[in-house]
């Protein structure tokens, strides 16, 4: 009788061990630093950029472009995204998906980062304001494309960590401030472009005032893991404001040719 139970227990133990191993392996929760370094991040980054280009090709109809600005894609292929991702998730850093960075914040899906950057139409002489530094990845991308990036983060630990990270990467044209982003950064206004990564019900009037005539502002709307649409606010040379909702995906809501 105990033999049967012994056998039964052994099988159960094996089964639970197997489940436990699967649980450990599937999310790849802990990847050692040595292992991470051994991987070719550059190759992964190039693959990510290729994936984004394919995505853009399928979205071309809606963003009215054959492809995203090559400078944006160049920046995407240069910035080491894995440096902006918490250590346990590093192996996933070049997957085309958003990742949690703590404090209820995420580092956006690379495709969305590229699209938002492209919508800002960044030029080398531009000065850009970012509200919501988060990990600092979006700022780092922008820093490759414009003269100066001003980034404001309300959560002090996130601002500090992003500052250290950008210093380590020797990206020197980003200035970070830990403050309420609602008021913008009057000291350095006006800005050629503004990107707001967290928005409530009101688009802050000070930000609209700190946007140059002819400037663009981009805001993602949705939850942290799935952007519902991107809002592009444009200020004409006369100071008139218009907004445009951009669905970041090729999707025709009607079947057939209607």
């Amino acid at each position: 009788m105990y033999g049967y139970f012994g056998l039964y227990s052994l099988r159960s133990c094996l089964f639970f061990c197997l489940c436990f191993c699967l649980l450990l392996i599937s999310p790849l929760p802990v990847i050692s630093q040595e292992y991470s370094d051994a991987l070719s991040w550059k190759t992964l980054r190039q693959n990510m950029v290729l994936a984004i280009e394919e995505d853009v090709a399928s979205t071309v109809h809606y963003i009215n472009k054959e492809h995203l600005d090559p400078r944006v894609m160049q920046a995407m292929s240069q910035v080491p995204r894995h440096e902006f991702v918490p250590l346990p998730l590093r192996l996933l850093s070049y997957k085309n998906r958003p990742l949690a960075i703590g404090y209820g914040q995420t580092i956006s899906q690379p495709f969305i980062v590229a699209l938002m950057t492209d919508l800002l139409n960044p030029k080398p002489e531009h000065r850009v304001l970012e509200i919501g530094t988060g990990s600092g990845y979006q700022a780092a991308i922008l820093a490759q494309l414009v003269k100066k990036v001003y980034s404001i983060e309300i959560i002090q630990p996130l601002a500090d960590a992003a500052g250290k990270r950008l210093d380590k990467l020797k990206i020197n044209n980003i200035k970070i401030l830990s403050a309420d982003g609602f008021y913008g950064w009057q000291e350095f206004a006006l800005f050629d472009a503004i990107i707001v990564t967290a928005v409530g019900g009101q688009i802050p009037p000070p930000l609209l005032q700190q946007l140059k005539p002819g400037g663009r502002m981009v805001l993602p709307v949705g939850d942290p893991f799935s952007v519902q649409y991107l809002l592009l606010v444009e200020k004409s040379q006369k100071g008139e404001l218009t907004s445009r909702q951009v669905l970041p995906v090729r999707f025709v809501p009607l079947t057939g040719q209607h």
Partner: protein
Amino acid sequence: MNKIKANTELAIPWSAVFIISGALLAYEILLLRLLSIIQWQHLAFMVISLALFGHGISGVLISIFQRCMLKHFVLLFISCNALFAILSPLSFYLSQLLEFNLLEILWDSSQIYRLLGLYAVLCLPFLAGACCISLVLCRFPNQIAYVYACDLLGAACGIALLILALYFFPPAFLLKALSLVIAVSACLACRLYRGGFYLKMSCIFLLMSTLALLLSPQFDRLQRQPYKALSKILLLPGAIIEKEKHSPLASLAVVNSPIVPLRHASGLSLYYQQALPLQKGLFIDGMAAGVLLQFQTDKSHYNYLHFLTSALAYKLQKPKAYGHIVLMDLDHARLLQAYYLSPYPITVSEKNQQLIKLFKDDYSDYINWPLLQQRIKLQHGDNRAFMQETPVKYSLIQLSMDGATQAGTLGLNSLSPQYNLTTEALEQYWDKLSANGLLSINHQLSLPAKSGLKLLNSVVNMLNTQALSDPERHIMLIRSWQTASLLLAKQAFSALQIQQAKKFCQEKGFELVYYPAIQAEESHRVNQLLQAPDFFSAQKLLNLDNKISAAEFIKNYKFNIQPATDNKPYFYHFFKWSTAEELSHLKAFGGAALINKAYPMLLTTLLAAVIFSLIFILLPLALPLFASVFNKTAFISSLSATGPGSYCSIFFYFSSIGFAFMLIEIAFIQQLVLFVGHPLFSISLVIAILLIFAGIGSSLSARLTATEPIRQLRKLMFLLAMMMLCWILFSPFIYQSLAGLVLFKRVLLIILFIAPMAFLMGLPLPTALAILARNQTELIPWAWAINGCASVVGTVLATLLAIHLGFHAVLLLGVALYLLAAGLIATITGKKCPFKQRDSTDE
């Protein structure tokens, strides 16, 4: 071989059964509350439905090890009871450590394992508690009807007491209190059975452990999902929860952020450049639910209220006409908008009493309620019931759909009935409009359009039933960058009103999507939509497009935009199978938001429930076979049905009545939301009625079916079918006649209608178990397991069927299953197998 010795001296632990049954149901409701606070309400419903597998597993365990378990009945009963006491808070604490994140489920496969872990961890207390009940049922088969009745009545008391307690104590505290009550029941059982020294010491040790666990500060902390609005707002420097109120309906939190002012004004025009008045954040179950605005003597602080799309309704009102405004659901900003933008008396219908108290008492000075109340009346109750009973005709009815925005973006609302947005509701609003009245419905913009188009389609559908010559002249639609407002006029919009709307939109930078005779070039000027321009969609829905009819447009649209009805009130159910594959491919291309997470989760839950049920049900049949192959049968009890035919009959009978009970229960719960006004009242009322009267039915089952039980049961099931048909036929009329009554009278009449059916629903299980108890006692736990598993599957299946077929179909299916069971009852027993030897306890 499978001899179970009867111990006639053993008393039935009535008090422990009563307490444990009550605690099991109280724990279920408490978990629903707690998981709603830390996770999302509809996710909580699914998690708990699967956790209830504990009942099924307990039956399976006892089926397999019944000789051993019944031999050590006292020890096991007390141990399971004590385990239930410890596990009830411990499991919840462990479930928080799993950090399951629904938002990430599309991206991270580990979330699936975390979800399974959540199911497993929360299943444990139910398993321990249900084992106690199953053990008693199997140990005292000749008293089965009374034990089952005690179980049901205990459950009814448990839920009633918990609902009452939730008004006075926070859920986290009640979890501890419940654990102590269960621990006390273990001690009572120990005393009843005069347990030996070691048993008593173990019991004291377990009680001490429970106390130690409960005193641990870890159990006081609720770890809210970091992505919920409340968690995020509390990250702001200096932000604190200033006031917290708990009730069975929701947990209300008021947040003060003194350093970083809150600035909530959904969809505010880009043209508004001033600061917003000071506000405190209002959160219901951790989700944003509006704000409390500090009273300002200078009215110019409230100017921003003109810059919301909902303000259009006030601009179009005829200034000299008599007016009375009604707002559906209490929202301070919309209340002030009505107060400052119109001179009329205002009535607000709100179902959450705590929220009303917050305005009238706790924050009376902050919002200057004494001033506001001169023109504003807060009415406690459900919107539909209020509309039904009010004799007043209103010049403006304001309805907002942006209550649970965050849940809406997750698609979680798709599983929840929305009686405010059904075709019947719109008819009711229409009837209550005065001759010049306006209905204004405000909602969050979704892209591509889903709720907006469904709403427009529902309105068009309703107008078509009103025999209007030109329904398209009664509709107007505007939007900002984030919100939209649909206006419906009792009289066709006049040229003056159209001019006023144009001026308003131009001044505020809003987009006119539709007004009678709008031209394409008038739309999409300030707020452009690159995809699916809503102007063209509106034209098609109103049959103003020559290329495609409205019916064809609805059919070809990739989301379900068919109007919701009272029979199928799932307004936010946009899922279409034909689009599922395309949407799943779009995840990588930035299309994750298009995918509804709740409906696929419901299907996955159902699939998991079916698979686990089959495993659990087949396990007691398969294990003895393995045991006999290895000649190891000492602990494994073989089941003793009279052949495969009888196994099948037992399986179909008990699964039928398990399904039927839950289908009817869930359909009643969802349907009665309309009658009593809130899901939690509905859940409590329906479960209490079903349990109490099914319990009474169960206790009387032995008498009712004393002679010719099979024939009697068939007659009674036929009677149940007749009653249910009457309910289905007359429920719309019953609703209309009840709606005008006060809640107490409504509840009494509902009890009168449902109680007889509940009484009859309590009969099939104890009758069949009593039949099994006569000559197949060993099968009782297996039958109990089948019934438990079917209940779990039935709970999930009922929601799915209601979404697609409606509540009437679910009720009909429930009745059909009861009739099927009545047909099968004769086959569940038969001659004994010649090669099996058994002694049942009552022989």
